[in-house]
């Protein structure tokens, strides 16, 4: 299990490749990548991500541990960036490995649902119109109900 919180960019493809290559006895790998999406107006200059150092690492480690235990994962990886990102950049990723696909998919979705609403990150969109904090979506909170 690995959890990384960092300002630096990371190579999503290289992380996926290395993760899959180190799985022994696992038949299924699922990955998710969150990408900085432009605004509806197409004028996004940057996405700024604030976080709570210390609590962030603890929250992510706990979520990853719970996923690993609950679905008997062979491995789990979480990487989340903070700071200033450009449109198209990868914000974060998770990867899960399990004997069969159902567990790998469920665990990855669980990780994402909890990470979205329970890990202390806050996004702000910077455009020529100003800087706006991204509002939490009701469906993200509601998504936790299924686990």
């Amino acid at each position: 299990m690995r959890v990384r919180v960092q300002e630096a960019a990371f190579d999503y493809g290289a992380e996926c490749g290395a993760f899959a290559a180190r799985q022994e006895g696992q038949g299924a790998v699922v990955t998710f990548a969150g990408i900085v999406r432009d605004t509806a107006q197409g004028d996004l200059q940057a996405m700024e991500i604030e976080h709570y150092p210390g609590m962030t690492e603890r929250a992510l480690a706990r979520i990853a541990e719970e996923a690993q235990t609950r679905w008997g994962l062979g491995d789990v990886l979480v990487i989340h960036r903070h700071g200033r990102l450009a449109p198209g950049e990868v914000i974060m990723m998770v990867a899960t490995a399990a004997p069969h696909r159902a567990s790998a998919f469920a665990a990855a979705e669980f990780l994402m649902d909890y990470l979205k609403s329970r890990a202390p990150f806050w996004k702000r969109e910077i455009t020529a119109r100003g800087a706006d904090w991204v509002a939490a979506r009701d469906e993200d909170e509601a998504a936790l109900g299924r686990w």
Partner: protein
Amino acid sequence: MDVLYFAWVRERIGLPKERVETEAATVADLVEELRAREERYAMAFADLSALRVAVDQELADFDAPLAGVREVAFFPPMTGG
């Protein structure tokens, strides 16, 4: 104890962190003390349903006790991922 603010709570109050000497028994009591200080605190804490709180880096409720606590943080709902 240390009181931390993040995202728009930090912006409204105008600082990321401050040392607070308090006898408040719960988070809610601490919020009342802070609200009474200045308008910017009253503004930041106007709607508690829009806020989340962490006590010693664990998500908590506003009725959580503060005995022995070293760090309280206030922030809006999280938007990671």
